[in-house]
């Protein structure tokens, strides 16, 4: 069997992820996390914070929850089912920062925790920042 032929054959013989079930679980759990976020937003709005303050305080609160659930070992158990439902919300970003921080503690606080904290989430910061600079430049010239 040639390589291409085998690759196609192996793919055919390998079970696929249950897409519809995964989509349903991602929708429900991802949606619920956003509802929770909306509750947090209302809480800070009623508290009298300005629009910008509400946005920042909501992010911080959701990040806190993501890190906490990661630390006590629950986030990965939800994510096993939720897939993108726990990956896409900002709690997933928090999980991807906290999990290497905890894992690499055994290699010390500087080269372990400090250096490895962004091994997964780093690209989000890098390309998010770069995209914002490009967007800023475009906006500067058309504005």
């Amino acid at each position, binding site marked *: 069997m040639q390589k291409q032929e085998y690759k196609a054959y192996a793919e055919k013989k390998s079970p*696929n*992820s249950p*897409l519809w079930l*995964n*989509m349903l679980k*991602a*929708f429900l759990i*991802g*949606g619920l*996390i*956003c*509802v*929770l*976020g*909306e509750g*947090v*937003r209302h809480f800070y709005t009623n508290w009298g914070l300005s629009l910008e303050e509400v*946005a*920042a*305080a*909501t*992010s*911080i609160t*959701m*990040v*806190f929850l993501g*890190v906490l659930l*990661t*630390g*006590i070992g629950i986030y990965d158990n939800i994510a096993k089912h939720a*897939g*993108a439902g726990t*990956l*896409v*919300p*900002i709690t*997933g*970003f928090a999980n*991807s*920062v*906290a999990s290497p*921080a*905890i*894992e690499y503690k055994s290699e010390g*606080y500087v080269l372990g*925790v400090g250096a490895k904290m962004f091994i997964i*989430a780093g*690209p*989000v910061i890098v390309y*998010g*920042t770069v*995209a*914002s*600079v490009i*967007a*800023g*430049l475009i*906006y*500067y010239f058309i*504005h």
Partner: protein
Amino acid sequence: MTYLWAFIVGGILCVIGQILIDKTKLTPARILVVYVVAGVFLTLVGAYEPLVKLAGAGATVPLTGFGYSLAKGVMKAVEEHGLLGVLTGGLTATAGGIAAAVVFSLIAALIFKSKEKS
């Protein structure tokens, strides 16, 4: 009513991510990069703001919302500080979330140990 929209819009944004995971070769890290970058440019062209108005946290909590904050921040900074704002605006607007992730994660590393899965 915003709760319902938050649920629906947030849920749909997650479902798109799930389809990308299961149907393409994109790894989770790549998907998150795509989300953030998409959020930035959708905001720049004015397409994301209506979604935030409609769904609130349903649009800001998913990582596209992180891109939304970056873009809104940079646009505001450009208006206020001109060219300098191009570099300062994005991270200023998202500083809270990033600093929270760093500080809370460090504290988590101090307190918690990595645990066995089963």
